[in-house]
């Protein structure tokens, strides 16, 4: 479905290599975890798949194939049918992902090019259902709120509801729980798990093995722009081969229950 081959990303100005020949693939209905810490290149890789990197600033090599089509060579008008429709990205910080001066309902409509009053009412209905699906029952209140009036966790769930409405085949979740509270994280992961069960493919970008474990079949561990280890989630966690993966696994659980 999505195949990334020998992807390298370099900044044009400083000639610094941020991602070095990274290859992986995501099959239909599969979820891949991209695990790494800051500076590992995991977010860069996911932005590149969304074609969000400015070609004047970054030098891209390698290929990203989406159902056999070369993504990196796509024209801008072709991208419209791909971005947001077939592949969607949920960004890390929901606060900055929404326009601050528009009510949420209004700005969510903008993404769906609705025509006429009837389509708009229909959309509102579907939106309310999607919001209810992510445990936000008071759709009316959310539609009439400005982003700053809601908490980060709520906004992130609104973002997920929006993604569900877009019905993408692949969702890229970029550190989506880093900016939210633990209780919200739990709810958000539950929502994504539901989508997984419905057969949506995912790339889960995270530094947290726990988040990856909730959602992913396979993981790729990234360090300094390279994939150092790849394999089935459970195997990588229980029997890490690379020294760095081992450190990461050890640091991911601090308090060992029952050992105290």
């Amino acid at each position, binding site marked *: 479905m999505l195949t990334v081959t020998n992807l390298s990303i370099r900044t044009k100005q400083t000639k610094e290599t941020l991602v070095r020949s990274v290859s992986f693939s995501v099959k239909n209905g599969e979820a891949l975890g991209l695990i790494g*810490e*800051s500076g590992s290149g995991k977010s860069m890789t996911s932005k590149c798949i969304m074609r969000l990197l400015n070609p004047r600033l970054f030098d891209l090599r390698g290929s990203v194939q989406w159902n056999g089509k070369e993504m990196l060579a796509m024209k801008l008008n072709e991208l419209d049918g791909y971005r947001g429709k077939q592949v969607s990205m949920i960004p890390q910080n929901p606060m900055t992902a929404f326009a601050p001066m528009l009510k949420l309902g209004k700005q969510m409509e903008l993404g769906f090019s609705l025509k006429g009053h009837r389509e708009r009412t229909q959309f509102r209905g579907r939106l309310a259902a999607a919001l209810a699906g992510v445990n936000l029952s008071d759709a009316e209140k959310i539609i009439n709120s400005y982003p700053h009036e809601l*908490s*980060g966790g709520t906004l992130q769930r609104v973002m997920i509801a929006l993604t569900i409405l877009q019905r993408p085949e692949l969702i890229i979740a970029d550190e989506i729980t880093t900016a939210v*509270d*633990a*209780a919200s*994280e*739990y709810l958000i*992961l539950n929502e994504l798990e539901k989508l997984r069960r419905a057969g949506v493919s995912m790339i889960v970008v995270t*530094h*947290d*093995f*726990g*988040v990856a*474990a*909730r959602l992913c079949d396979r993981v790729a561990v990234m360090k300094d722009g390279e994939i150092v280890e790849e394999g089935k989630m459970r195997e990588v*966690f229980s029997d890490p081969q690379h020294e760095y993966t081992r*450190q*990461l696994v*050890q*640091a*991911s*659980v*601090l*308090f060992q*229950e*029952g050992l*105290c």
Partner: protein
Amino acid sequence: MLKAEHITKQYQIPGGGHTVFDAVSDVSIELGNGGVTAIVGESGSGKSTLARVLSYVERPDGGRVFLDGLEVSACGRKELRAVRGKVQLVMQNALGSLDPHQSVVSILEEPLRLLFHMGAEKRKQRCLELLDMARLERDTLRRRPDELSGGQQKRLCIARALATQPQHIIFDESFSGLDVTLKKQVLGFLKELQTELQISFLVITHDLDTAMYMADAIHVMRRGKIIETLEHPKSFSDFQEPYSQELVKAVRSKRRALQ
């Protein structure tokens, strides 16, 4: 011993006229000498406000703060400066909490000169001791904070706090935002430091895992109030309050997936 009684702190809601909300309302907490206490709460629970009141950076609107029997919440500026060194606050943003134009050595020497009136020779020696204590290389002395790595910045903040010879150090979300491997390193180092120096630590965090790993006693805070206190918790199951259990559920769901 640091003791707070019935602390209340209010903030005006921006743009809300004269409406105020209680960031902290009627919180009492006692920190003994030595030991690690944790306060767990999510953003907006008032835990950072409480940290500022406890380290007498801010005055409470109601209630009193005592340090070894001295009521610091009623002290004037001069008296306060005399006990400044006893309670130290280490903030989340390590780089932002260091003066960008000062070098490492002047950051460390400032409290030595102002609080202990040490001479140049003695200061220099103490600086090196502090660097060793915080496991920082000696050649970092001449550098500026922004030239250090994230881990080194954190250690420098801790070294500066140690320079004042405190009885209490309050860590306000000092470890969130650190990479996981680095966080584990810093937490491990702090545990060793605590056993070695017998200073009392107060760890303020949103992460139940960090709290359980570090602390002997845990307070759960929500909406400005302490809703549950556990002494020597052995397992996540010790939490009784519904809100605490929600936090536990969040940690456990990830744990279970990993097993």
